């Protein structure tokens, strides 16, 4: 933690940490505690007064079928996004580490979707799948599929999942490739001498050895799907049609800024905070302690 050799106590360190502490206090700790406080309040219809109601906001949420539905939808959405992008990235990384000489070129060609903002990714996909003009609906029609994500909830969900997963492939690919390249080649050579083919080597040696990376990426991708996909949802479906793509983060925004239900929105924020903290703790506890066989 602290250096063995360090400077003597003086007012200087306080000055050094002051900027970060000030920003943390004003923009993080104070608003977060406000969210906690507000989650115990109910405002009256005119926003004039508010009443302290203990856990009523949370009770309302737990008995609200819309909220519970949004909860499950978020879980399904994030699992789909994580699974799709990690699976795709795993396949690509598995092949890229075999193409020793080309690996770097392929990496260059695959990483840049990371730099595209989520809302832009949403815009690109919504353009490609535009029901009247888009390229994919045009081809899908030959297969008898009538694509309209403005009307069909399942298709809307598929579209946001694809857009979100597409953006995350680059990130997963980088980590998988790095993990695979750090496996000592002698292990794989030994397996090859014993007669294991490429597929067998992948499943019995490479895949188990990179399981810590898989676990780490699973947590990171879940957090990404929970929080950073707001832009995609906002640009592509705005939570619709109906509520078929309203995930938790979108609901917090919608209830708070559009519906002006401050107490309810704050209670939802608190639940989200608990979720993030849980995920972060899981990540810290288990990523450090390697998944081993």
């Amino acid at each position, binding site marked *: 933690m602290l*250096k063995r*050799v*360090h400077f003597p*106590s*003086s007012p*200087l360190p*306080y000055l*050094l*940490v002051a*900027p970060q*502490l000030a*920003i*943390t*206090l*004003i*923009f*993080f700790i104070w*608003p*977060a505690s*406000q969210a906690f406080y507000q989650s115990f309040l109910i405002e009256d219809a005119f926003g004039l007064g508010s009443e302290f109601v203990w856990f009523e906001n949370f009770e309302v949420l737990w008995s609200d079928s819309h909220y519970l539905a949004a909860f499950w939808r978020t879980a399904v959405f994030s699992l789909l996004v994580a699974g799709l992008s990690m699976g795709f990235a795993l396949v690509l990384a598995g*092949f*890229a580490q*075999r*193409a020793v000489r080309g690996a770097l070129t392929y990496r260059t*060609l*695959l*990483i*840049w979707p*990371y*730099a595209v*903002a*989520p*809302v*832009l990714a949403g*815009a*690109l996909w919504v*353009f*490609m799948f535009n029901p009247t*003009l888009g*390229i994919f609906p045009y081809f899908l029609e030959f297969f008898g599929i009538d694509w309209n994500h403005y009307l069909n909830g399942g298709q809307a969900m598929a579209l946001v999942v694809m857009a979100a997963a*597409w953006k995350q492939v680059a990130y997963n690919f*980088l980590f998988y490739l*790095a993990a695979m390249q750090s496996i000592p*080649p002698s292990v*794989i050579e030994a397996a090859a001498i014993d007669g294991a083919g*490429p597929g067998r080597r992948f499943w019995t040696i490479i895949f188990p050895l990179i399981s810590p990376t898989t676990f*780490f990426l699973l947590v990171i991708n879940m957090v990404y799907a929970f*929080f*950073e996909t707001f832009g995609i949802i*906002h640009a592509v479906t705005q939570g619709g049609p109906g509520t078929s793509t309203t995930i938790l*983060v979108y609901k*917090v925004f919608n209830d708070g800024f559009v519906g002006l239900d*401050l107490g309810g*929105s*704050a209670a939802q*924020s608190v639940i989200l*905070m608990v979720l993030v*903290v849980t995920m*972060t703790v899981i990540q810290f506890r288990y*990523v450090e302690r390697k998944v081993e066989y």
Partner: protein
Amino acid sequence: MIENRPFTRFLTHFVLICGVIAVALPIWITFVAATHDELRMNQAPLPLLPGSYLWQNLKQTLFGEGLSGTEQAPVWLMLLNSLAMAMLISTGKIAISLLSAFAIVYFKFPFRMTCFWMIFITLMLPVEVRILPTFEVVANLGMLNSYWGLSIPLIASATATFMFRQVFLTVPDEMLESARIDGAGPMRFFFDILLPLSRTNIAALFVILFIFGWNQYLWPLLITTDTSMTTIVMSIKQMLEAAEQSPQWNIIMTTALLAMIPPVFVVISMQKLFVQGLTETDK
């Protein structure tokens, strides 16, 4: 490669090329859309090969009226706003976390661990979950529609502080001992020894933070009501809404292209630093 079989080699490159095509397809379609005129972009099978209107579209998007039917700032101004926000966030984050990591690693002072834990908490609270109260704080401070309001609430981050703490802990103790024997004070040591030693880490972090800052969406959406403060990334959403009445997809996609060029350029041109930054900040 361990064995050299022509078929597996072919398969490897075939799968990778298919992957690259799948990943690049959305960007390619955007680029193609930016090279056609409005008329062509409204006929049902959209083109898959580029046309000849790229310069015209660029000129109209950057300096022209923009999209008809929307009240938007000119695109060059939005690009500038985005640049200012991204630069403020990345340099601000780097500066404050360098200083606080220095204090936490090199000084012994009362409440050192309290400070550390307060910073640590911010790791767990993305802006999305505390959005409403943070908005209220910024509104009360009168920072709506300003570069400060856009950037400062996003500046505090534990990840950067952690990374610099990690870097400083690997600096040998003898450095400080010899610096002190030579009569250097804390700040002299910081500027003349620690900063040069962590130069590549700073650069790697800058790449990541620049992309993070440039791509911010929800926060600028709430904080800016004045059209002259909008960022390029936000403007896409308004354009998509306007597209339902007057679909000028060529202009919309040219704007999207302009909005993604700076961060993509940063990632590609500084690939090595980018990969380093990514693996360091997240692990």
